[in-house]
């Protein structure tokens, strides 16, 4: 049977990119939060997105997740336009925000079942998937306890497990390590890396340069709504002209960009 993505002309490049951002612009009144981002993230790539506060990272992620409409441009997930075919795109992706919503009066197990059923998973597959993940995230002691009584870190782990349950093709996560202890941060890193090697595309936003440096195949830097650099660690170092730690390259690139954007204002 012909995949709808093959038949759809606007989804022609799905084999190349699992996440495609094409001239993506988002304005909030006078403020341009995302300013013409073009980016393709291929299948199985682990992409870390860095940027100072209010750079436009979360807005970009929200457009990928379909939570807000772009002012112009297109966001595609697994070849599906997030605006035109939202259900197809969302079936294939998972999104974990920095402060995820959970139903407080449910137990983690009930929450996993609920999320799995929303993704139309059958019981056998749900059981297999959940058992593996809860063992790795050490969630067994909490499975029958109401979520409302659990710590922030445990809630974060529950959110990540529920997002991974349906084995998404694209995994988008905003600040994944917030609230996690070192042991579980390691588990998250390992699982995401394994899944990425098995073909899951990971798009994660972080302020922790060390995590990006350790995990990412490529790193994208967003500053003042624009994608100012994208590449491997070495490519970024070369682009910035600063050898050594990623931090130096990041600071150089963002300060260069800030200086460049001030020039037209100064000329005026």
């Amino acid at each position, binding site marked *: 049977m012909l995949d709808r993505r093959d038949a759809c002309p606007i989804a022609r490049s799905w084999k190349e990119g699992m996440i495609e951002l094409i001239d993506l612009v988002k304005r909030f009144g006078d403020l341009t939060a995302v300013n013409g981002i073009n980016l393709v993230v291929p299948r199985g790539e682990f992409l870390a997105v860095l940027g100072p506060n209010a750079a436009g990272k979360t807005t970009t992620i929200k457009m990928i997740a379909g*939570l*807000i*409409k772009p002012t112009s441009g297109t966001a595609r997930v697994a070849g599906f336009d997030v605006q035109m075919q939202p259900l197809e795109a969302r*079936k294939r992706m998972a999104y974990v*925000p920095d402060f995820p919503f959970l139903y407080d009066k449910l137990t983690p197990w009930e929450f996993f079942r609920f999320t799995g059923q929303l993704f139309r998973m059958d019981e056998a597959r749900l059981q297999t998937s959940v058992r593996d993940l809860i063992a790795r995230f050490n969630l067994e002691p909490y499975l029958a306890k109401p979520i409302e009584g659990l710590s922030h870190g445990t809630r974060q782990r529950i959110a990540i497990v529920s997002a991974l349950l349906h084995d998404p093709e694209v995994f988008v996560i905003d600040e994944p390590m917030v609230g996690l202890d070192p042991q579980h941060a390691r588990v998250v890193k390992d699982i995401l890396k394994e899944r990425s090697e098995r073909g899951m595309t990971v798009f994660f936003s972080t302020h922790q340069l060390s995590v990006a440096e350790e995990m990412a195949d490529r790193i994208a830097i967003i500053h003042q709504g624009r994608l100012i650099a994208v590449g491997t660690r070495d490519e970024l170092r070369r682009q910035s002209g600063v050898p050594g730690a990623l931090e130096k390259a990041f600071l150089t690139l963002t300060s260069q960009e800030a200086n460049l954007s001030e020039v037209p204002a100064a000329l005026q």
Partner: protein
Amino acid sequence: MSAHSQTSGLPTPLALLIKVNALQAWRRLKSVRDQSRLLTGLIGLSIVGYASLSFWLFYKGLRFIKTFPGLGTLLTERLLFLLFAFLFVLLLFSNLIISYTNLFRNRETSFLMSLPVPFEAIFRWKFLESALLASWAFLFLIAPLLAAYGLTHRVPWHFYLMTIVLIALFVFLPAVAGSWLAANLARYMDRRAFQITALLLAAASLVSAIFWLKPEPVTDEALETRVLVVLDRLLTKTRFAQYPLLPSYWLSSGVLHWAEGALATAGFFALVLLSHVLFFGCLTFTRMGNVFYDAASTVQSRGSVLSRWGWFRAWRNRTRSCNFAAGPVESALNKLFWLRSETRALLTKDIRLFWRDTTQWGQTLVLFGLLGVYIINLRHFSHQLTNPFWMNLVSYLNLGACSLNLATLTTRFVYPQFSLEGKRLWIVGLAPIGLPRLVKAKFALATGASLAVTIGLIWLSCYMLRMPWERTLYFTCAVAAMTFTLNGLAVGLGALYPNFKEDNPSKIVSGFGGTFCLVLSFLYIVSSVTLLAIGSPWSRRQTTDQMISCTVGFGVLSLALGWLPLKIGLRKLVKFEL
């Protein structure tokens, strides 16, 4: 991966959402067992007390109206039409506000929007949830009335069943209208534009009500000889409630006809309601998904609508350029040189937070505004208010109404203040001012602001009732004492029963301390007004002993419920541990 291994036979997303939320609601209800027995008892007692009292009042009222020869039925009918028409408007507003919050300011909605749940399914669930949340109080309000109506009119048993069906159909219509309005207002208006429009509409309604609700001049002769003509003139202004295209008209007609045994006519109105519910329900369930998504995206994407206007941009730029200067509140408070600078800083912060929270000043304005409109309208009762009995009664009722309004506000806004401060204890609690002073500053600010309003309203009431200065002074002292007490009670209990887990003030209030505060405030007001009325110095049947004992009783009660909780609360704060 996942998308390729879907399975059939699973519940629909809407069914899943209903199931999961019903489970949550059930567990919330069960958790009542873990709450304080005293709180559960208080809540249960309040519910039973309200239902019994309102049933008794409605029953007595309807029986009284029925005794009017030839007019009883007409008056009862008109009252029902009016009641349902006003409740329809209230339900519409309630649905509008709850739908807006539920659709666009709700974390569950954002969560569901990132999952493969169709927007239609999200909207359907949120619509059902909002309709339930907005309508349960309506059912609670009218149940005693309909029970009293049924008893006074000796209706058959099936009247009650049919009424439930009619009401279930009726509440659906304002829910549809409210959700549709919410989605479209969110789509086309930002918060500030909405606030300004709402205030302008409220002002326009107020002005039109003042012009429309003018008193009918009626002479004593007309009252005695031309009752029907006079009554017809008086009822003319309530005819709007019998406009046949109003859903409340269909409900009222259905209820009344069923009670009279005209089952076919009542059935017709039930079918009218049903057809509208089906038509608008179908539209809501099938056509609102994309409207909702557009609106949700717009809500999260918008700059201010007002920023399109040049004057607004200029004003905003000017305020931005003044960022480092003291604002008007700060400048005004700086003139109070006897206050310490840290106390002034706390007061400035609290005043700013109050002003920037529309809910707080909006509800204050509505409650006291309505009371003000009522008091101003006392001038129309000039004929009746020449009688000393009525004058006395109305003046004490005004004192009670003013205090009840204040009690609602102190419980809703003053009580949770300390708990909310708990979230900010990293800055305020650790500052070198001490928690007792923080709470004292809150008490002073809340009492000062309340006094300005309550004394103003009592003066207005005394002026409208043309009371002499000594009576005005008496009521001023009484309302001032009650204001101190109600604020002391709210601040004191707020410090005694803090809840630092919640950010939402309404959830803090719904806990034990808040409920206790509300119940104590109401009991205090009822007891105080009764004591003051019994010990009134202007009552002819009054003995000096009775007057002194009532006044002393009022003073002791005020001290016990105002000063004592505040004192205990402040003492607790000295050894406070977070």
